[in-house]
């Protein structure tokens, strides 16, 4: 996967060789140039149809005043210029302020969730490197959260987080007496914690899988050499295991970051159409700003801003991590 990040590094020698094969016929040159494009064609058509064209339409929408008066005939909607953007980034006015708040909540949530998913996933993978009794069973068990349909998993958590009848309050309040009165988890400030718990519960097995796979590629000799040098178990983990996971982590963290940042299903099932302020993730916020209030222009402008932000973050992230890894390899 890392090669996509450093695409130019890998030259397509084999491609040329492929076309130079024994069965080469006359217009080989055209075929040689055309073949990769032909292979990309289905993906390109679908991406254009389902992602890129709607994205362009979305960007166009962000410059229009698209309220319920115009959704029947988008062409008739008046151009709004930069008004939608101005409204979204005017952080002194309530709309901009709410967007900024939601953005910050999302950033905080994403960092916490990705961090925890990665940490738990890595720790579990390292713990399960050696064989021990019940390892297969445990590994199977750990994959269950990833295999449950999102709705089923999240609604179970809703059931557990209920104020009056939920398991969480039953344990914390009734049985352990940690809180002096039952807490609210689905509304109010605690909703952030609830969201984080559900997100980590669902997300860490993916990190676990990827890291566990990555660990299998670390050459045994490295550990042996380190052991000869007198490095203990903990030192081996720090000096060999973690650095060797660099390539895996680069992609894993990016993937987790993008998924978590734009996750809609989890908060939507957890909180419904209007999320509590403390857990007002940007995806639901934009949904509310466009679908529930029927103002698609503003919603699109917010999405475009989000796109720019994520592009920037991804670009910087890839540049920094790629350079870092190249430097450490040298």
């Amino acid at each position, binding site marked *: 996967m890392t090669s996509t990040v450093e695409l130019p590094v890998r030259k397509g020698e084999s491609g040329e060789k492929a076309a130079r094969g024994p069965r080469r016929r006359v217009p080989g040159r055209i075929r040689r140039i055309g073949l990769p494009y032909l292979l990309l064609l289905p993906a390109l058509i679908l991406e254009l149809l389902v992602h890129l064209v709607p994205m362009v339409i979305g960007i166009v929408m962000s410059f229009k005043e698209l309220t319920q008066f115009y959704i029947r005939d988008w062409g008739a909607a008046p151009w709004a210029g930069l008004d939608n953007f101005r409204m979204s980034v005017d952080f002194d006015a309530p709309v901009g302020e709410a967007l900024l708040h939601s953005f910050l909540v999302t950033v905080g949530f994403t960092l916490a969730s990705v961090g925890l998913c990665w940490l738990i996933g890595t720790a579990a993978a390292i713990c399960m490197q050696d064989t021990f009794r019940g390892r297969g069973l*445990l590994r199977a068990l750990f994959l269950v959260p*990833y295999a449950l*349909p999102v*709705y089923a998993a999240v609604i*179970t958590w809703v059931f557990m987080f209920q104020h009056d009848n939920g398991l969480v309050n039953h344990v914390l309040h009734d049985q352990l007496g940690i809180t002096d009165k039952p807490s609210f988890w689905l509304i109010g400030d605690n909703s952030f914690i609830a969201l984080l718990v559900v997100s980590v519960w669902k997300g860490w097995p993916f990190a676990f899988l990827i890291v566990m796979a990555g660990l*299998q590629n670390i050459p*045994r000799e490295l550990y*042996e050499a380190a052991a000869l040098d007198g490095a203990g178990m903990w030192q081996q983990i720090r000096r060999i295991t973690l650095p060797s996971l660099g390539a895996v982590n680069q992609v894993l963290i990016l993937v987790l970051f*993008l998924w978590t940042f734009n996750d809609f299903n989890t908060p939507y099932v957890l909180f419904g159409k209007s999320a509590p302020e403390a857990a007002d993730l940007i995806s639901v916020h934009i949904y509310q700003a466009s679908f529930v209030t029927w103002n698609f222009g503003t919603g699109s402008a917010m999405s475009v801003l989000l796109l720019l932000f994520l592009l920037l973050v*991804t670009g910087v992230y890839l540049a920094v991590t790629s350079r870092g890894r190249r430097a450490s390899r040298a």
Partner: protein
Amino acid sequence: MPSSPMAPPRSFLWTRRVFLTLLAGFVLLPVYVMISSSLKPLADVTGKFRWLPSELTFQPYIDIWSTVPLARYFVNSLIVASAAAVCSVVIAVFSAYAVSRYDFRGKRVFTVTVLSTQMFPGILFLLPLFLIYVNIGNATGIALFGSRGGLILTYLTFSLPFSIWMLIGYFDSVPRDLDEAALVDGCGPLGALFRVVVPAAIPGIVAVTVYAFMTAWGEVLFASVMTNDTTRTLAVGLQGYSTLYDVYWNQIMAASLVVSVPVVAGFLLLQRYLVAGLTAGAVK
């Protein structure tokens, strides 16, 4: 299994035991709640939480089929998710092969563009996509809207970007000598792809298929507006247990379990491939 040559110190063993126990508890808790709640009468699940059912009942497992047409939703989900996963992977294989094995103009643009589609909030695709589908329908008579086909098309494209990304990694890890040998033996490039590269990357392909399947299996928003009564999928259909009158928690849990068991079972059967598969993809 690569294990460290030295016997792990006690401190590590203890930490491991405690950590894995806690983690297993965390993972299992909701699963336990699902199973126990599905065996409780309605009064138990709408009243104070209790660890054990006041009486064991299998009634929820009977009722789920009549409260909502669960079987139909399950079949819909299965068709949609399987078709989306298979098509997504087939298309991703072609693309990833091109990117992995050929050098051509626009390669970087392609991969970066594909990635950038993951940065736009999915909800904003909804209306434009609708318009496009309806226009395609009007122009060609192909009904994408409200049909399983439309949903399959949407989902397969959702999982396509990461499928392509992951598969490029897997293909890169398949030694080039192998397909060159196949080419020398007289296979065309596609022959090399299907006779050499794909078999060598089977684990990765399985991993990507699972990912694509789960993406389609769990999606809620598009399914809620792009389906009708006959094409509704589980992710939306399960909401039917929360009715105007009452929330049938025990039936929700029972239905969730019933529909999850085949998926989880299939998933666990495949996990052997998954572990081997993701290795190759993530590390070249």
